[in-house]
């Protein structure tokens, strides 16, 4: 065990000494994305592992050590970390925990403090916790988010988004079950191997890798069957983490639907964009505004590259951040930034515009921002787009799968009925005032 050092507020620090023989444990959210980020962090000399423990013990640990009125992702993330330490797999005196912190006005910024309280309750107060954030909160001598790591992490996230996008488009139609997952694994393997050697990290090589990935997925034999496409949006953790949403994508697949899950890079750009908007609305240093503006453009360059790669290979491509942003006019202001903020509504609007009006809006039970940007916008979306078909599903340690599935099934049944109605109406001429005010 390394010597424990504290900052002036009594926060346990992750020291340089710890860097040598401590293992960093990170919770899981997006399995593929995070696996690549972890590999990059490793290449900077850290021992780091992404946790894969799941199931009841994780939830139990969370409920035991976290205030039960805290949001579900906090319970899961902290439960997963504590359960891992208590599993006996690691020497508790040689691990540190990593958790993200957005610094926004939602409760999620407090996860790290809830985690520390939980560690204390579990007699693990000697385990250091590292905050991953872009706001400069909580610095540690032994851990630095260097520009290099950040740049590469963005690459990893873009690769992850591409894999998410193409695999979701192929998996429901694959003729041989498992082909898609094998292909994801193969792509991951070569990407990780590349990263391990420091390759695949230039704009040029990234574009080449994009094509290699899209080609691999294009090569999977698929059926021409038509399936209902279902969008998945929501609070970022339950939207992506199978642990958080009771394996939502698997369920949608088993119901004969194609899940459409918007990627995570928009969220990153969104968080950068917020800072620029803040200066715009409330005033502040123009240099901050300029820097954020530049950073947003930088990340969007890679997003565009991904979109181009999708297009040239014949996959459906999502719109870029600017396009997403254009949808929310009349719905929410640019200043709506806590949690997923206006981005969540924008994603629903984009899905409706690209012909995916059937949407599952996921949120932890009692999620504060989603009262507004999720559930709060469904009425207006339905008024403006009568064929939209959105179901809000709450996730919670006590919520049962059967209730969630029944409501999703209702949404799927509606999808069919609405499609029929829509087809009927499009055959008969529609009086002009009854037309949907699309766009």
């Amino acid at each position: 065990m390394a010597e424990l050092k504290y900052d002036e507020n009594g926060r346990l620090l992750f020291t340089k000494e710890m860097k040598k023989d401590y293992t960093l444990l990170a919770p899981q959210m997006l399995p593929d994305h995070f696996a690549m980020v972890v590999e990059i962090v490793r290449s900077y000399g850290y021992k780091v592992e992404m946790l894969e423990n799941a199931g009841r013990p994780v939830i139990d640990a969370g409920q035991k050590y976290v205030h039960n009125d805290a949001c579900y992702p906090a319970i899961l993330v902290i439960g997963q970390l504590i359960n891992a330490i208590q599993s006996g797999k690691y020497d508790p005196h040689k691990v540190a925990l990593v958790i993200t912190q957005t610094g926004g006005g939602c409760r999620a910024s407090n996860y790290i403090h809830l985690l520390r309280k939980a560690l204390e309750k579990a007699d693990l107060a000697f385990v250091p916790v590292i905050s991953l954030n872009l706001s400069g909160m909580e610095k540690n001598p032994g851990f630095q988010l260097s520009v290099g790591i950040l740049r590469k992490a963005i690459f990893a996230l873009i690769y992850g988004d591409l894999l998410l996008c193409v695999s979701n488009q192929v998996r429901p139609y694959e003729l041989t079950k498992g082909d898609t997952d094998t292909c994801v694994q193969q792509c991951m393997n070569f990407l990780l191997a590349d990263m391990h050697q420091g390759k695949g990290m230039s704009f040029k090589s990234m574009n080449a890798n994009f094509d290699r990935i899209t080609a691999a997925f294009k090569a999977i034999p698929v059926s021409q069957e038509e399936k209902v496409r279902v969008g998945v949006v929501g609070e970022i953790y339950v939207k992506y983490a199978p642990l958080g949403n009771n394996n939502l994508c698997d369920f949608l697949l088993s119901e004969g639907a194609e899940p459409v899950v918007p990627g995570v890079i928009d969220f990153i750009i969104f968080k950068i964009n917020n800072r620029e908007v803040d200066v715009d609305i409330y005033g502040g240093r123009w240099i901050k505004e300029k820097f954020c503006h530049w950073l947003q453009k930088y990340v969007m360059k890679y997003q565009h590259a991904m979109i181009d790669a999708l297009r040239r290979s014949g996959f459906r491509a999502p719109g870029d951040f600017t396009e997403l942003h254009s949808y929310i006019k009349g719905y929410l202001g640019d200043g709506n930034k806590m949690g997923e903020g206006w981005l969540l509504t924008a994603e629903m609007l984009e899905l409706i515009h690209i012909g995916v009006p059937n949407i599952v809006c996921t949120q932890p039970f009692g999620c504060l921002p989603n009262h507004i940007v999720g559930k709060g916008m469904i009425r207006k979306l339905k008024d403006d787009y009568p064929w939209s078909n959105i179901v809000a599903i709450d996730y919670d340690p006590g919520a049962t799968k059967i209730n969630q599935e029944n409501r999703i099934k209702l949404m799927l049944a509606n999808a069919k009925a609405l499609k029929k109605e829509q087809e009927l109406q499009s055959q008969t001429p529609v009086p002009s005032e009854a037309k949907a005010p699309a766009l």
Partner: protein
Amino acid sequence: MDLRVGIDIGSTTVKVVVLDEQNKLLFRSYERHFSKTRERAAQTLRSITDILSGKNVHMVITGSAGLGVSKVCGIDFVQEVYATAAAVNQYVPGTDAVIELGGEDAKIIFFGGALEERMNGSCAGGTGAFIDQMASLLNVSIDQLDELSLKHEKIYPIASRCGVFAKSDIQPILNQGGRKEDVAASIFQAVVDQTVAGLTQGRALKGKIVFLGGPLHFLTGLRERFVDTLHLDNDHAVFPEDGDCFAAMGAALCATDYPSRPFEECLKLLEESVDATTALDVMPPLFINETNYAAFLSRHNANHPPVADLATYAGDAWLGIDAGSTTTKMVLIGPEGGILFHYYHSNQGNPVAIVLEQLKEIYRQCGNRVTIKGAAVTGYGEELIKNAFQCDLGLVETMAHYKAAAHFNPQVDFIIDIGGQDMKCFKIRNGAVDSIMLNEACSSGCGSFIETFAKALGYDIASFSKLGLFSPHPVNLGSRCTVFMNSSVKQAQKDGAGVEDISAGLSISIVKNAVYKVIRAANADDLGKHIVVQGGTFLNDAVLRAFEQELGREVVRPTIAGLMGAFGAALSARDLHLEQSDLLSIEALQSFSHNAKPATCGLCTNHCSLTVNTFDGGRKFISGNRCSRPLGKEKQTLPDLMKYKYNSLRSYHGKGQGTGVRGRIGIPFGLNMYENLPFWFNFFTTLNFEVVLSPESSRKLYIKGQHTIPSDTVCYPAKLLHGHVEALVEMGVDAIWYPCMSYNYDEGIGDNHYNCPVVAYYPELLAANIPQLKETRFLNPYVGLWRHRDCEKHLAEIMGKEFAIPHRETVAAVQSAYQEYTSFLHDLRSMGELYVEEARQKGLPILVVAGRPYHADPEINHGINDLITGQGFALITEDAVSWKMGYESRNVLNQWTFQSRMYNAARYVCAQPDIQLIQLVSFGCGTDAITADEVRSILEAHGKLYTQLKIDDINNLGAVKIRIRSLMAAMEARSRGKDHGDS
């Protein structure tokens, strides 16, 4: 065409229908399944073999529990709301909307325009199971409940969100002598409100409405409430003859699209699936064997009071009464605490009658040998019983329980009491009750829950809980509120769990709920070393065992666990050392009479629902009041800063110093306007606008806006805004001003200065959900007030664009507005100091009520301030003291301004020996999940008491009263302890 069969397997019933080629009903059935879903469906099908035998049939299953059955047996499934829509299309063409209530689901379907179908979310009662629960609470059958409701005279406001909430509303009404007829109708009204609020979500319910599902089919009173509330006439309210079976009929109609099979094959599929089970989430058994259980029993049965026998005893005795929420307990003791007489029974909604009867019985058995020297009463019905029978002492439950527990273990440091409706836990520190934890309205998985469940499954409570003792694999049902547990049980049943596994699972759930949700303990040491458990629910050995297992520690359960409140009351009566008791004599009891009448107090805006109890000889007792005014006494005017703040805010309307020529600006009086109104009022009146405030909040105003609330789990203060904004539209203002504010003022006391997401962005939610706002000028721009110069620029831009106001004029108005805001703050702060001074002079205890600014709204705090000052406290608010402390680093990210004030207020209180703090928390407030623990730890680190009051749209202040009185008792005990220490 082949015959079509639809099977609807709901949470409590199975419906089977057979349709012929003309869509005519050949057969229909509606039966309870007592969680044996597959068996029930198979039996019914077998019983109609004569109709179907040898034929090909299209068979489809639907319903909330049908999904699982369909998966196992391989018969096709259609979603039940979809099926219902199909049936309505076929049988009631021209329908505009459908409301269907089922056992545990509520559904709504809108036709016309695009089809819209919706079900209740995961947190929503107001369904059949809710009505069942309420009926058993009133101790009547469902039919009786229905009959009662038709004779109502008045409707009480009852929280409609979920059964648990409603219970805590209904119980006090009953305990205070409210009429069952009125309660019955109020229960149905709550269901209606829940349906309208939870499901319409902004789409108007009009035109021809079809009502379906069991409850609406069978309950005339419920129908009446719906028809009344929605203002429907006979042509527009349709109750189809087979309304209870519509989903099944719809399923049969949909069956056309699915392949047909020989009937015998379908039956076989269903019957064979009966034995199939799937993986269950299970836990270790409670007891391995009988020996194990016997040892457990003998250990606990050793904790009993001294033996005593009334038949032979002669001498003095003391009476204790615990008028609990669902049960009445009475105990007569001798000088050593030996129990001479005891009684434990459901109070059947009328505790007075029960006590009267038992008191007569006690006098009879006492004869001339025994003299009752004192009587004390505790519990929810304390005041009523005390007044009815002239008891010598009324004491708060926590004190009674401590008194009783100390009798068994003088060293006791932790007491947990789980009763029928509530759960109380408290620590004992230095001989005083400390840190009380009560179950919050949403997690009361208490005794009556198991009971209701036992009944639903066809068992009585005793045999049901016995079943669980030796279950080899108790099911894991989670540890949240009862609504969630209901669906966990549903899932377990679907997965094939037996009744004994469910019974054990429920017992364990209750314990987990208590330990993790109410007490929030990580381990046994968090509780204490000497734990005494009590309350009727702990007489259930399964619950007791689960509790010991969960803690990994042995606890004391006295044999009289269910009587501890009464026992403690009796001990307290004994310790009064009275020469003579005032208790009504046997003679007085002969002429005793009691009559209860509901009334509404009109003396202030609280509009308390009063119950006027009159007894023989003109004795009178009024309950339900918050202050002493309806009792004919002058209202005490103790310092109350909450009221002061509210009144001074309400005065910010009109033209101010300006001319008002630019028009009328409406400002909704809610959420952060409780902070910013002085600013905006001055700003707009300086610009020569007239400021129009929305009316004061009220239940009525809430109901007005209820139908446009999209998220039923958001906090009550936010929900109220819908009514406020609609009212402003009706008042015909020229524009409504309600800006979005991500950030609050930066008071330099936190790490950041956000508003919570709901406060910050609720204006945008209103704009998207309230249709009337589309025709109104609703201004909700993003504004930040903490950077004065930037704010001037930004507002000048907005005012220029919206009203063509010159830049310079707006800038001047902003500057003037800042001054007004500052002087408002200063006034509040100096008033706070004045109040503290005044209280100190008079020797009054002082309470800081820490919440949000909008908790000053009487509709949000339900008059808690009156209750507090009524108990003799001087009240000040968190914002009047938070400024006295500077920034200090916290163990949480201290990033919301309003919340930062609470931390500072707590720190301030820690330095003041004569001030305590109470935290107000709105149900559903996510940020308070963070702040509650932090405020508690600040206070407890300095030896202060932490008390939290959770509030929602509920009106009942019973639980609040217990806490405030316990706090007072604890403060007194502490100051006594200190006096001893000093001397």
